[in-house]
């Protein structure tokens, strides 16, 4: 079970990272085309007008997918910022209990958000909404990763809560809080 869960978080984290890689590739390709265009305009006096259709829309969709699919992985890496100033002063046992409450609140909120994001995706599917732009995709398909990411985060929070109640330390405890916080 532990192995499956870890694999799930890692997989969705890797997909998130691949989205960033794709953004870089896509945008850089467009910059290269712009350059070719500029050179062509200088040589022949006429721009060809090379553009990747809807590239800025795609970039946005990839960013959304990356953000939400990365949530669970980031949680476990201790990447999400929280204020530890107050709780840091408490005794370990008290802090562990407060963490349980915090996790329960987080779980309820994220689960709620995930449900409504799921409903939004379903609605887009029912009405057959499509994205605007030159290349039009079904809206539900680009919204789906956001909902999936929230579901994975829900699972990760449930996982943390159960571990907490069993008396285990949190996966994000003592990880990378110094350099990333800004």
């Amino acid at each position, binding site marked *: 079970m532990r192995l499956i869960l870890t694999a799930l978080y890692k997989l969705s*984290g890797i997909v*998130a*990272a691949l989205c*960033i*890689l794709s*953004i*870089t590739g896509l*945008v*850089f390709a*467009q*910059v290269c085309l*712009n350059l070719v265009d*500029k050179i062509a305009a200088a040589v022949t006096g006429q721009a060809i007008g090379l553009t990747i259709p809807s590239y*800025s*829309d795609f*970039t*946005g*969709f*990839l*960013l*959304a997918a*990356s*953000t939400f699919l*990365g*949530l669970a*992985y*980031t949680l476990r890496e201790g*990447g*999400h*910022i*929280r*204020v*530890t*100033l*107050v*709780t840091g002063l408490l005794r370990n046992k008290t802090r562990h209990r*407060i*963490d349980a*409450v*915090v996790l329960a*609140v*987080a779980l309820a*909120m*994220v689960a*709620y*958000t995930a*449900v*409504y*994001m799921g*409903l*939004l995706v379903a609605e887009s599917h029912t009405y057959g909404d499509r994205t605007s732009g030159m290349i039009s995709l079904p809206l539900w398909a*680009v*919204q789906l990763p*956001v909902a999936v990411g929230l579901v994975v985060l829900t699972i990760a929070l449930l996982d943390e809560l159960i571990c907490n109640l069993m008396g285990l330390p949190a996966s994000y405890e003592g990880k*990378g809080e*110094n*350099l*990333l*916080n*800004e």
Partner: protein
Amino acid sequence: MSVLTLSIILFVLLFILLGSGLWVALSLLAVGMSAMMLFSDAPLGLVMATTIWGHGNSWALAALPLFIWMGEILFRSRLSEDMFTGLAPWMSRLPGQLLHVNIFGCGIFAAVSGSSAATAATIGKLSIPELSKRGYPEKMVIGTLAGSATLGLLIPPSIILIVYGVATEQSIARLFVAGILPGLLLVSLFVGYVIIWGVMNRDSLPVEGARYSLREKLYHSRRLLPVIGLIAGVIGSIYAGIASPTDAAAVGVVLALVMSWSSGSLTRQSFVEGLMGAMVTSCMIAFILAGASFLTVAMGFTGIPRLLAEWIGSMGLSTYTLLAALTVFFVIMGCFLDGISVVVLTTSVIMPMVLKVGIDPLWFGIFVVIVVEMSQITPPVGFNLFVLQSLTGRNILTVARAALPFFLLMLVALAIIVAVPEIVTFLPDNM
């Protein structure tokens, strides 16, 4: 329930949630949810889902992971080491000597990293051992690092300016360009202070024996070339108007990859680590932004920001009084929250107030960033202080005391940009 009671309840709720250790993004989301439940009949879940989707897929925000990734790649390359050896020959004759390496090193690294904690960590890891070995006073080593590392927030490409730009719908390219002169202003204030201090305290500084001829200086400076080329390429393409910040960020990533590949520090492992690190940081920031965007929408439903703006408007405060009050407020907030949270909270509640008294939102962005920089070096929560604490093993109050002169210099810089707003607006107006 009156608006006042409600605002107080929400404010207290926010502090309880943050204090209990609930993640910042979720705290913002929770306050937004409570505000909507208490104060409007709008369908909560639906508004939330559409807001999150609407703000999550943003072309402008796509610059964020790319600039973070660029910083991660350079962080893992030999860049900082090169910078020290390249800069040192130029500084050895100036009063204050190699202390200036901290300032210029941070200034340059800030231009490629966009994050002040990363700047403090990278430059500090390199310069602290080097400078203490040569006998520089610890107080000044720590102080110059703490102060100048905050430049990472202001000197473009700056992650916090991207966040501000996206949240307030300002042009990110204009914000970047607006940050250049204030950044240089801060650098010159820091350098001036170290020179004066150096002249007054000649005895406590070591004598730099090595003299370099111009030829040697230039020869050593060749190691600065790649990074200067990178900065010129990224900022130049934005300034010349041929690339949007997102485009420029992608170019920066590719150049950084080429640079670290040619210097031999790019391995499969460092590539994967850098990419995953960039994903984690950008996910954290984008999630906070999603929470803040929902809070902004929820606040709109409650009408609190509008009433607050009207209230401030009716008091007939002068712009200066308002700015002074906001500075104090931000520095206090910054004692407990990180820079990005401060900025996103600002945009949800304070922006209407600021617009009401007729402050230019572009100028205000730079103002906020400088105040946030100041809050990075104020105890008890100042991320630069934490980084330097872990690098030097000194306690946070010692580090904070060393940083105090630089805090005051930033206050001077604030006063200057209030008195002469053109320092901020001149470049963007002439873009």
